[in-house]
């Protein structure tokens, strides 16, 4: 497999590979026009010393492999709230210059790895579109471009929910709710390019649910020994918001002994915590829309992103909308994990040639 780098000697005259990238806080998904697509957990690890490097036989590890070997690694999760950590938005903490440089390197390496996963040829031009949170600042977007420029020959940034809508040809009277790990991005589409007032980003998403579930489990079972990784795994296995969800009985260590614990309520209550903030944001976007078209928007709410896989979330949001807004119809898109990447790929493919040239 060829190294996806612009600095290679290969002459790029073979073809054009379009790449759609959903560079997410929790997962990075990539789709390409060679039929390849892949998703990787957004973790990067570098061996702590010579011994661990020799043992792992790699200079850097990604995704699940990095998480599994985290004790021997300096582990980075380079994105936070949908943007490169330390970009200084939301509750993102400020990093020192050194931390920032290390984190940026991790983000670049992760992006390079993600592109490698779709197996580009060295002699092909790589044109990519990256989805960013709906309200990512100019600084955030510039940081993403800086990362991408090292891997791609030409790159564009677009709003993640816009990419989702474009990907499924829903450009009119539709409200996209893209639930990621760091942020939930909402965007109303009304046939034109969404403007600032058409988009809302809230820091209530997968990571927020993890914290809520952890809090609930610790309150109910104070002796339970848990890590954030375990919480994530439990959420991915059992997440549901419905009253009649399948009981979640998990083996969790107590004083070193795996013990079966009923965490059904902890999971359900934790997952439910995102329903109200999302409905609030939906209500805000609907209320500021042309009253003649508000009902159309209410009846075309699309859920996308990994967070939309929570069991019954569409029903719960719909019920809350019915109660608060009088009506509502919520649907989940077909492939939530790849919705952003597929949409970005479609944008990349349909972008005229001279546009790509000008951005090189």
């Amino acid at each position, binding site marked *: *497999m*060829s190294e996806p780098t612009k600095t290679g*000697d*290969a*002459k790029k*005259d*073979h*073809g*054009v*590979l*379009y790449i759609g990238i959903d560079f997410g806080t929790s997962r990075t998904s990539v789709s*390409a*026009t*060679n*039929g*390849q697509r892949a998703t990787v957990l957004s973790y990067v690890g570098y061996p702590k010393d*010579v011994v661990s*490097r*020799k043992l792992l*036989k790699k*200079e850097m590890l990604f995704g699940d492999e990095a998480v599994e070997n985290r004790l021997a690694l300096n582990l980075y999760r380079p994105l936070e709230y949908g943007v490169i950590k330390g970009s200084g938005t939301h509750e993102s903490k400020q990093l020192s210059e050194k931390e*920032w440089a290390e984190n940026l390197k991790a983000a670049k390496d992760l992006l390079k790895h993600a592109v490698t996963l*779709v*197996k*580009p*040829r*060295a*002699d*092909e031009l790589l*044109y990519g579109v990256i989805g960013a949170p709906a309200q990512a600042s*100019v*600084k955030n*977007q*510039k*940081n993403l*471009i*800086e990362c991408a*420029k090292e891997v791609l020959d030409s790159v*564009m*940034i*677009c709003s993640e929910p816009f990419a989702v809508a*474009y990907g499924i*040809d829903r*450009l009119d009277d539709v409200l996209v709710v893209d639930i990621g790990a760091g942020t939930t991005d909402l965007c109303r589409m009304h*046939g*034109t*390019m969404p403007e600032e007032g058409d988009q809302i980003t809230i820091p209530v998403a997968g990571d927020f649910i993890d914290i809520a579930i952890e809090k609930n489990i610790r309150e109910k079972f104070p002796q339970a020994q848990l890590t954030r990784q375990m919480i994530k795994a439990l959420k991915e296995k059992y997440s549901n918001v419905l009253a009649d969800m399948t009981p979640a009985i998990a083996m969790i260590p107590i004083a070193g002994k795996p013990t079966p614990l009923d965490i059904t309520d902890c999971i359900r209550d934790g997952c439910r915590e995102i329903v109200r903030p999302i409905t609030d944001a939906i209500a805000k976007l609907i209320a500021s829309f042309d009253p003649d078209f508000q009902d159309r928007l209410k009846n075309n709410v699309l859920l996308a992103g990994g967070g939309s896989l929570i069991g019954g979330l569409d029903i719960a949001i719909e019920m809350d909308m019915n109660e608060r807004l009088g009506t509502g119809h919520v649907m989940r898109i077909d492939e939530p994990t790849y919705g952003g990447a597929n949409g970005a790929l479609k*944008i990349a*493919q*349909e*972008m*005229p*040639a001279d*546009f*790509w040239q*000008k*951005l090189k």
Partner: protein
Amino acid sequence: MRVRLAKNIFDLFTKEGRDASVSDLKRQGVDKVTLLGADQLAVLIEKSLDRALEHRVLELSEPEKAALLDRAQKEFETLRAELHGLEGETDKKRRELTDLESQLSGLHKDFASAGASLDAEIMAAARMDAARMPEPDIAVLYSVILQAGITNTAQAERAARAVVEYLRRERDAAEARAAIEHRARVELLERRLAKLNETLARTEFELEHALQNSNREEGMASIFKTVQGLRESAKDFERKRALLSELFQKNLVLQKGAASR
């Protein structure tokens, strides 16, 4: 190309063809059929295609033929240049591998030599311990002093003790100096070994990496050779064109000076 075409036609017949029994045919009023095998049909179609192509070539004007020939030649040249480039790349990789292997072999030798030096130092230290200077015997010294004519036994004893003490101090100081020098040599060798060890590990890693690279897949080719763009037949063509144009304009503005943090 020809074989593949014939095979595809043959496969199409066998896949799409209908089966009919003799009794079915009789029911349909057919009492005599001329058999023509699928392979024969495939050959006939192929011949007909060949004829059509030949005919098309004959219809071409001289400038068209020249242009066609020119395009084919250019394509051939491109492919040849591509092949040449790939061969050059392979040679380069091979040279890099050879360099790395020789570097690794040199490091192995250095490593072995540094290890041998350290072993020699340790052996020398062990020999030095074994050959440690014996404690001076005070009784012997005492008798030597008496023989030298000092008859006062108290003075002789004091002198003997003073000489013994002096010799002990000198011996201890010499041993301490030797130990410091020895320790310094061992530390130096250990540092050198550690450095060699690290270099060896790095070179081994690079070699492994280079070996992996030499066995790399070429990657999966895109289905597009050129930039596609929005097709005029696409749904919502005008609106999509406007959206894409706006998105591009925003990116153009954004990417002016995108390098700063």
